[in-house]
């Protein structure tokens, strides 16, 4: 049984989860800070 598919699957899960979390947090932060800035200017 080749072990590489297991290694690749574990890395894919870790990298996909980390990327989704980082990008999601960044987008959410930018959106919230822009909304706060826009409201401050009103």
């Amino acid at each position, binding site marked *: 049984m080749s072990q590489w598919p297991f290694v690749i699957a574990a*890395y894919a899960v870790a990298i996909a*989860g980390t990327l*989704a979390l980082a990008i999601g*947090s960044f987008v*959410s*932060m930018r959106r919230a*800070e822009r909304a706060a800035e826009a*409201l401050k200017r009103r």
Partner: protein
Amino acid sequence: MHVFANPARFLSIARPLTGWFGWCGAVLIAVGLGAGLFLTPVDYLQGQTVRIMYVHVPAAWLGMAGWSGIAVASLAELVWRHPLAGVAGRAVALPGAVFTAICLASGSIWGRPTWGTWWEWDGRLTSMLVLLFLYIAYIALADAVAERGGQARVAAIFGLVGAVNLPIIHFSVLWWRTLHQGQSIGFTGSTIDPAILWPLPIALAGFTLLFGAIVLMRMRAALARGKVEARLRRLGSAA
């Protein structure tokens, strides 16, 4: 600690730190995982699957460190009524849950070729699964408190009580010697060969820095949302 109680002061520090933590973390992760995949030798017993360690161990560390962060934030919220403690606790919860889930998934993938099974009700695996459920319950509780205007203390108390699971996870491999291997990295050294071990601290540092950046981003988002809500309330009452 109360130096950071002022959100404006906190933001003046958090803004530059977010980028530094994020980019340094990303570079260290790339170096650590690249070295772990292509530069380290194959383990004589586990073969190629030993490379899963470079994602599994940082995920396990962050799952546990995340709840330690929630416990410290909960203590600060309950004892000192630190205004940012609740924000910090809630900001840590989702990243902690995601890394606990990554730990469980990568461990399960590692277990199939090594132990011959995807899952076993072993002490370490079960206590990590309990940690994931605790995170989910904390997130649900904190959201419910925020939406319905309940006592924020309830989530803080839950954060402190849930910390009981951390020593159980740590000592599970000593208390119940079943399938998961015993402790291989301690304060005094490691039983892992240095030729295989060296990328692990790099990956650990990288994931930890990125985790810090994610928590800062989530805190900044929560503070900005709070500002918007407060401003809208003021505008509404003035109209």
